């Protein structure tokens, strides 16, 4: 990879630039706050890479355009924020069922309903449990910084094609709207993992191809579900986490995305005061880095999960350490912007419990 000098940009621009670096040639979107910088940026930039930009009539349509481009075997993406991502779930389910690769970015905002336009992690369940109908999963990456937003876009496209599966990048309003120095880099030539062997691009003498999620024949759907489940099992190898100051920690805080990054500041400060606290920041939410947590549980660590929601990832933390340990939970309500000071009291409380 070749690195260039740092630039000072918003997370939403880092997402856009990361997608271009990844070789994205088709973008479909619909306006919704707080992700509007992405379609605005790409509306002019897609043309510079000989790509396509379509402002769709709805998030429903945008996600289905993504499905169409994915069927064509090209690198494509859509971006939205929570209410819009709810509307995309139909197409994401079809993409998972038809094994089509594509990248969906959710710049998570407050909910339920119209909620607000501030930051939230309330879409954790929707992101990690499939989100639409049927038994399927999407890979989910959770950036906590603008640099990670850039890097994870490149990773997202590679994973999508590696597994022929939709990949969700779950950012939030903090990541999308804050400005940080980012070092852009150009990855090696995109590897579409043999997309030319399954995509539809005109038969030209070969056997025709069919991309579908309908399996009516006896046993066919059961077989397809078994295929998908074995694929999701293989995906577990992609689980990653940022493990910080955990070696001698009595209490391990588990937090993801922007909140994980804010908690890291809190942990640094408490460490400077001699408190034995560490942090596990999952970078992939599906697959969830269960092994990392389980290993720490076996060492006798206690856990506190902190999220900007009412308690969602904590379920996965508890499942990861089940039979060995448990996790306490501290929820910072969506609608309220947290600072690192907000997490001192809950960490001290559980450290001293």
């Amino acid at each position: 990879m070749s690195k260039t000098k740092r630039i000072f940009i918003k997370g939403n621009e880092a997402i856009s630039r990361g997608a271009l670096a990844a070789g994205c040639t088709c973008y479909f979107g619909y306006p919704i706050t707080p992700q509007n910088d992405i379609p605005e940026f790409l509306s002019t930039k897609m043309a510079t890479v000989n790509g396509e930009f379509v402002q769709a009539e709805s998030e429903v349509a945008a996600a289905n355009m993504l499905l169409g481009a994915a069927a064509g075997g090209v690198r494509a993406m859509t971006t939205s924020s929570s209410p819009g991502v709810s509307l995309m779930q139909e197409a994401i389910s079809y993409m998972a069922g038809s094994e089509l690769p594509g990248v969906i970015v959710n710049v998570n905002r407050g909910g339920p309903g119209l909620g607000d336009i501030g930051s939230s992690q309330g879409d954790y369940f929707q992101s990690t449990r499939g989100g639409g109908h049927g038994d399927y999963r999407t890979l989910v990456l959770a950036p906590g910084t603008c640099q990670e937003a850039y890097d994870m876009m490149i990773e997202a496209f590679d994973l999508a094609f590696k597994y022929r599966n939709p990949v969700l990048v779950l950012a939030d309003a903090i990541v999308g709207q804050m400005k940080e120095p980012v070092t852009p880099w150009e990855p090696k030539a995109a590897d579409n993992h043999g997309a030319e062997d399954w995509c539809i691009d005109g038969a030209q003498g070969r056997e025709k191809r069919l991309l579908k999620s309908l399996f009516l024949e006896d046993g066919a759907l059961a077989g397809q579900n078994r295929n998908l489940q074995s694929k999701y099992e293989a995906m577990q190898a992609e689980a990653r986490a940022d493990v910080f100051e955990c070696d001698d920690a009595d209490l391990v805080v588990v937090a993801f995305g922007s909140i994980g990054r804010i908690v890291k500041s809190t942990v640094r400060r408490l460490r400077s005061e001699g408190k034995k606290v560490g942090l596990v920041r999952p970078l992939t939410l599906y697959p969830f880095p269960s092994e990392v947590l389980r290993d720490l549980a076996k060492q006798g660590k206690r856990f506190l999960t902190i999220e900007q929601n009412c308690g969602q990832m904590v379920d996965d933390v508890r499942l990861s350490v089940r039979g060995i340990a448990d996790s306490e939970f501290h929820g910072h309500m969506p609608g309220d912007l947290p600072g690192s000071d907000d997490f001192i009291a809950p960490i001290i409380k559980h450290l001293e419990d």
Partner: protein
Amino acid sequence: MSEKLVFDAPEIMIDRPTHYCPGCHHGVAHRLVGEVLTEMGLVDDTLCVGSIGCSVFIYNYLDVDAVEAPHGRAPAVATGLKRAHKDKFVFTYQGDGDLASIGLAEIVHAANRGEKISVVFVNNTVYGMTGGQMAPTTLVGQKSTTCPDGRCADEHGQAIRMSEIIGGLGGTAYCERVSLDSVKNIRRAKKALRKAFEMQINGTGFGFVEMLSACPTNWKMDPVSANTRITEEMIPYFPLGVFKDVTKDGEE
């Protein structure tokens, strides 16, 4: 005695019995699409976007690359596919429940953007695959399983006329309503398909062909009566003709 072949199916048509009911016009419509694709030399470059309804199985009958779209979303899927492969021929094949009800936003905006795709719209005034429920195109007075006393304009509204809507949009290059009720009209339908497909090949714009079709099973009619119904009841409400042709506009 030697046999002489006087009529054959184009190679693009897969030689198998269809799942369609006796008297259903999907078979005729599929064949017209197959003939035109063959005659225009498009078979190897065609990407078919199927939809939800009886015709979801079009991929079992046409030997071309295909993708299955969610209900109503075929024009959005086709938009993405065409943008990814601008040099390929992309068409959707949709019924009236799919296109005129749940997929109304997608068809209107794909047409309005002037996507270089072609749409084959089979209008039989009923949801066929799910068992004959009221469609947005069901005629006032027509009985269905969800309006067993007949469609009532006050309660259900009137049948929506899609070609009139699509023909009025800026991005539409060609829009025609045809019927499959007679040999003459079937020939006309084939010409309309060719015209709509040419609009895509030439990069002119969006092509739309509405085909008035029979669904004898859900109309509870024999095939001949169903054909007669198209002639006597549907055509008067859904007038045949060209609603837009950008290559002719301004010539009159």
